Each structure stands twice: as structure tokens, then as C-alpha cells.
């Protein structure tokens, strides 16, 4: 097979590096390794890191979970998932949210909102639903900002 200039594809491929494989340039790799070693060389670094971040506390032995407790935990998880899902199945409040490919919510945030003045948690036979109390979502947005600010230690 030849190209318009009469050079074979094989010959062209031999001249062109294959970009789907790591480049093998031992001299450059060696120099980059030396450069990385020099950058990594900071006397006392490991000791200072360990002083700042001591060994993780051993995990406490987990109590045996009874089947009954597991069922409760499973029910709580399903309920939280339904709450999160139903919260965002409501009509999108703005074009920006409507255009978003996905929205994620933390179950913890949902439970905090459920205890606020801006939302209410309704119980239904099929699960729970978090309803906002305001029509334009501005109060709920302020509430989320407050929760995030408190969580971030800004208040």
C-alpha cells in the first residue's frame, strides 16, 4: 500500500513514533529520575510528617451486628436514598440546575435540612420526602450555605 507520494505506509510508520506506547528514552528517563530524587530530598521530611500525622488510631473492634440491626440499617439507607432521589425529582428550580448532568446530595445534609425551618420531612407509606417550604428555593439555598459554613468552621 502506498500513499500519494509513493512512500509505503510501513516506511512512514517506521519514521513516526507510536504514541500509544510509553516513550523509551533511557537517557531522559535517567535525568528525570535524578531530578525527581533531588526534588524529593528534604532532610527530616518523614519525621516531620509523622509528627504531624501520627499512626492512625487502631480501629475499635466492631460489635457483632444483629440481624435486626442490619435490617434497620438497610431500611434507613433505602429511606435516605429515596429522600435524596425525591428531593431532586422535583421540578428544577433554574436553568443551570436543569442543565446539570447530575446532582449529588449528602444524606447528612438532607437530615440537617429536615431539622431546619426551611424544609419539612414528610412520611409516606413508600418512604420519606423532603419538601422545601419556599417556592423559589432561596431560603433553602441560604440554609444550605449556613450548614456548609458551620461545617467549614466559618461560623
Amino acid at each position, binding site marked *: 500500500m502506498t500513499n500519494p507520494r509513493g512512500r509505503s505506509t510501513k516506511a512512514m510508520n517506521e519514521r513516526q513514533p507510536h504514541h500509544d506506547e510509553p516513550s523509551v*528514552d533511557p537517557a531522559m528517563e535517567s535525568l*528525570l529520575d535524578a*531530578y*525527581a*530524587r533531588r*526534588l524529593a530530598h528534604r532532610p527530616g521530611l518523614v519525621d516531620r510528617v*509523622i509528627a504531624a500525622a501520627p*499512626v492512625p488510631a487502631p480501629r475499635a473492634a466492631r460489635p457483632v451486628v444483629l440481624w435486626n440491626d442490619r435490617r434497620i440499617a438497610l431500611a434507613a439507607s433505602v429511606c435516605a436514598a429515596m429522600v435524596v432521589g425525591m428531593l431532586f425529582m422535583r421540578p428544577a428550580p433554574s436553568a443551570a440546575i436543569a442543565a446539570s448532568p447530575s446532582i449529588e446530595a449528602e444524606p447528612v445534609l438532607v437530615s440537617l435540612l429536615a431539622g431546619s425551618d426551611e424544609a419539612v420531612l414528610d412520611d409516606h407509606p413508600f418512604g420519606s420526602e423532603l419538601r422545601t417550604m419556599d417556592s423559589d428555593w432561596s431560603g433553602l439555598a441560604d440554609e444550605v450555605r449556613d450548614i456548609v459554613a458551620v461545617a467549614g468552621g466559618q461560623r
Partner: protein
Amino acid sequence: MQELPAERLEHLIRRAVAGDGGAWRELVAAFAPRVYALLVARCRDPELAEEITQAVFVTVAEKLAAYRDLGRFRSWVFQIAMNRLRDEIRRRGRHAKAAGGAEDLELLGGPAPLGYQDASPEALKALGAAMATLNEAERQVVHLRHMGGMSYQAIADLHGEPVGTLLARHHRAMTKLRQALEESGITLEDLQ
């Protein structure tokens, strides 16, 4: 900087979670210099790089017990480091230093570590200067690959890009670095 075999790494993580100080030290000794090298290459500020390295391992220590994806521990640690650095640069805004090459030996850690047959200081300085000829995306893949010691697959996971794209970018970066070194009178073959 020796790589830990996967089995050893998994063993160390389990021991560290159980409160084994020796295992935790070995984990930190294996990863902290790499994390620091990556960060100092990115921010060019040794103090900030160390501060973030410490913060990274505080996070790792806190979350290690809950960490499950043992095969991607390295990616996880570097992801924390890159996120921390990004947050800090955002926080510092325009006062943050631009990521470029590490031209001065102070940034390169001063004298060569004992026991290493090092490249010449001139070659290292020239390589630091050559890094400045790369664009940001090229520099990042070189830093993650060579300072962080990450695999191409791990870098691809971190960036959410195909491995082939990263390989092509890395190849372009290597070509640019070689050209810049040759222009500054450094011939790689002479260094070997």
C-alpha cells in the same frame, strides 16, 4: 525512591490501620518524598510543599481505616495532594508562584543525597529550565509521571482522560525537553 510491591503495600496498610507505628512510618517514608517532590515541582515553594505534604498524610491517617480500594492507594494519595494544592493556590490567589521548572539548586533539595550517583548540577538546572518550555498540561503529566512515579493508567484515572492522549502528551513533552536541553548545550547521551 523504591517502589513498594503491591503485596507489601497492602500489608503495610492493614498493619497501619491496626495501629502499627512501624508500618505507618514505612508507608510515609515510601510516599511522602514522592508527594513532596510532586508538590514542590508544581508550586516551587518548599515550605508550602512540606506543609501540604503533612496535611495530606493527616488526611490519609484519618481516612485509612475506611479506605477500601487498596489497588489504587497511590492514586488516592496523589489525588488528595493535588486537591490540597489546588485549594491552597486558589486560596492564595495571585500570590501563588507559577508552576515552572526548578532552576535553582535550593529547590532541587541542595546537595545530592548521599549514596546517589547524581547527574551533574548543570544538567539538572538545564532540565529545570527546560520544564518552563512545556505548557501546563505537558508539565503536569511529566510531574505526575516522573516526580510522583505514577503509572500512565493512574494519571489517566486522575485526569479522566484516555491513556493514549496522555502518552501522546508525554511524548511531546519529552521531545520538547530534549530539544531545550540540546539548545542549552546538554547532550543526553553524554550524561550516561
